[in-house]
């Protein structure tokens, strides 16, 4: 494909979209799919056919629209009508209402803060386009950033652009993306690789999944731009094996891009060539760690190796390798299209741009959101999230999953940013925001994450392999009320030991949930201590009594 053809195709498809009077979009994100939105698409299709409307009002399944708690969601374009909790019984009424009076009883207001307070950059087209059609992606400007980069910029200029934008790694560590790109670009090796890390393993995180399922072409385009910038012509997409929909859509998107000459040899008639392959993770959380990820792609056990050498110097098969997270890469095309100043104008001094978060837990609106960094947690939870349901009160928010920490009410006005969160003992992590209400036990939260780290430890280094088991044991004792003050002291010293002596990030950050809950909720630990030491051994599989059960949470609340 040459540049003119891309513009032509884009215009043609954009024009085709305006020719159709109405369109129905059905959310086919993972959450709505769980509520059978795929069957909904078929039902609407059947109904449209029956009423002879399939030409004037096509229906398509799209990526996550964000408000998972109101799913399944159905949107009518261009009227901007959104329906919530749609079931198959509503289909005929919805189809009949197209172009007429909307169905008020099903409507989901779109002027609520959940929608108006967001700034969608990464998720710009997520939920708007059919992720399985490259035509849709082209119509909204897909691959124009790649075209600009290849035809109007040198690799060094692309990197300068990324550097100036202030973009930092969205996978958790927050390393400046431009610096990483520079290191790989500088490495002198004829063979280099670009790897997209889509092995999203944090429990409670689904940002990458949302992007891969909702707008796969965006990430593919970004990988090609990254390849051009650092001098790599081969790329790997490493995706969590459980994400079957992501894998399916990515494979399809790669095939479509190849067929249109947007991947492969001499893209846009330039000397730049880039090929892309998908590799499946096989269910190991530690594989998300850079060096373990490389081992996984090479077909080995996914255990980390000491750094340096960093993958940027010696990665896949010993070649310099750029590894970026899905959301990081998905931020690149807008930076090229709208300029680095535009991107850097959002956010705080050290944390620029927008960030995608998965908002879950005890909050009214759960789902996928994107806000400029610098937004406060209070705004996210009480405005966008709509507050705490069922008359309960806010207790804390957990960020960063098993490597992160808890933030209590007194720090709710902290602006979201890498350093700001670190100062209060939490971390941005990959972007899971878990809201806890007054019914949640903080010891239990810490124990939950420790159990996760314990089972996910790869077993290569002793501090992590043995330490997490011991810490979990102590936390179980505390939450079952059989621990003494001595046990608590032992737990604290173990935290320190594991944090400072483990090989990789998994072990080094495993004590974080304990340390942060101890910092803010020490009273909860101390309240469950006993003065009589028990010699009774607790089996490792012991669980504290299950918390009281709840009804189906807040449907429509």
């Amino acid at each position, binding site marked *: 494909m040459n540049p003119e053809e891309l513009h032509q195709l884009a215009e043609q498809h954009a024009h085709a979209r305006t020719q159709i009077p109405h369109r129905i979009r059905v959310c086919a994100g*993972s*959450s709505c*799919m*769980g*509520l059978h939105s795929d069957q909904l698409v078929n039902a609407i299709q059947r109904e449209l056919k029956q009423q002879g409307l399939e030409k004037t009002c096509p229906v398509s399944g799209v990526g996550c629209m964000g408000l*998972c*708690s109101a*799913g399944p969601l159905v949107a009518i374009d261009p009227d901007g009508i959104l329906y919530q909790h749609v079931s198959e019984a509503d289909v005929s009424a919805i189809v009949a209402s197209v172009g007429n009076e909307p169905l008020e009883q099903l409507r989901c207001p779109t002027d609520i803060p959940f929608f108006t307070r967001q700034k969608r950059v990464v998720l710009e087209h997520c939920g708007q386009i059919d992720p399985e059609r490259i035509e849709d992606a082209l119509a909204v400007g897909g691959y124009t950033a790649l075209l600009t980069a290849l035809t109007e910029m040198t690799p060094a200029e692309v990197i300068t652009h990324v550097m100036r934008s202030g973009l930092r790694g969205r996978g958790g560590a927050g390393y400046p993306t431009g610096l990483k790109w520079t290191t790989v670009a500088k490495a002198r090796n004829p063979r280099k690789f670009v790897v997209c890390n889509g092995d*999203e*393993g*944090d*429990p*409670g*995180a*689904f940002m990458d*999944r949302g992007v891969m399922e909702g707008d796969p072409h965006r990430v593919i385009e970004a990988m090609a731009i990254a390849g051009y910038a650092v001098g790599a012509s081969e790329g790997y997409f490493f995706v969590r*094996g*459980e*994400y079957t929909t992501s894998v399916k859509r990515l494979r399809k998107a790669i095939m479509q891009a190849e067929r249109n000459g947007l991947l492969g040899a001499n893209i846009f008639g330039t000397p730049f060539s880039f090929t892309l392959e998908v*590799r*499946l*993770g*096989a*269910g*190991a*959380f530690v594989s998300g760690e850079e060096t373990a990820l490389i081992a*996984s*792609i*090479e*077909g*080995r*056990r*996914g*255990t980390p190796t000491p750094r340096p050498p960093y993958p940027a110097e010696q990665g896949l098969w010993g070649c310099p390798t750029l590894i970026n997270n899905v959301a990081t890469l998905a931020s690149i095309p807008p930076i090229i299209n709208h300029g680095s100043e535009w991107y850097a104008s959002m956010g705080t001094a050290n944390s620029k741009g927008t960030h995608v978060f*998965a908002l*879950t*837990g*005890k909050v009214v609106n*759960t*789902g996928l959101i994107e806000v400029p960094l610098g937004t406060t947690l209070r705004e996210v939870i009480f405005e966008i999230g709509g507050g705490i349901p069922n008359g309960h009160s806010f207790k804390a928010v*957990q960020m960063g*999953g098993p490597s992160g920490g808890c933030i209590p009410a007194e720090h709710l006005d902290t602006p979201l940013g890498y350093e700001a969160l670190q100062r209060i003992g939490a971390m941005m992590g990959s972007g*899971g925001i*878990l809201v*806890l209400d007054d019914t*949640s036990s903080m010891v239990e939260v810490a124990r*939950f*994450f420790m159990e*996760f780290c314990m089972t996910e430890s*790869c077993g290569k280094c002793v501090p992590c392999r043995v330490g997490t088991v011991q810490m979990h044991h102590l936390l179980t004792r505390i939450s079952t009320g059989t621990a003494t003050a001595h046990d608590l002291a032992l737990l604290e010293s173990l935290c320190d030991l594991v944090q400072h002596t483990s090989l990789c990030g998994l072990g080094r950050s495993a004590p974080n949930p304990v340390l942060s809950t101890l910092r803010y909720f020490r009273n909860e630990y101390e309240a469950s201590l006993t003065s009589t030491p028990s010699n009774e051994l607790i089996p490792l599989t012991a*669980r504290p009594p*299950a*918390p*009281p*059960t*709840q*009804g*189906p*949470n807040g*449907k429509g609340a």
Partner: protein
Amino acid sequence: MKAARIAPPSEDKRWRVIDATMRRHGYHAHALIETLHATQESFGFLDEDALRYIAATLGVALSHVYGVATFYRRFTLKPRGARHTCVVCTGTACHLKGAPALLEALQQRIDHDPTNPPVSILAARCLASCGLAPAVVFDGKVVGNLTPDLALERIEKWLHHES
């Protein structure tokens, strides 16, 4: 040096899928995980014959193949006995919204049933369907916003169909 190509362990047509996977990757050792994925998908588990065949064809040590197959949670060396599976998500959001009680109720019903009902109760790490918390996958189908009663109801339906 690549080992000479050897014949698949049996006449089963499914081996063609595995062969095709290895061929696509040029019989390189790094195709191991992709090949195991293909085998697991075709046969449902990885038996010793499969491991030996893959090791010989890709020219890697059997110990290495075994090491990889047992490292990753997605691979299993034993056939799945039960006809139905019920996977409870134990991710953070589900945990907070009652997954432990769900798991306990289901285990109480199935694992402690002396008649050994044909259902496996399993726990999974986050399904990334947190909007549906607490969620359970019944035979590959995600169902959300569950209570122990609703989950048990589904299981009972299976059991009644069986008898």
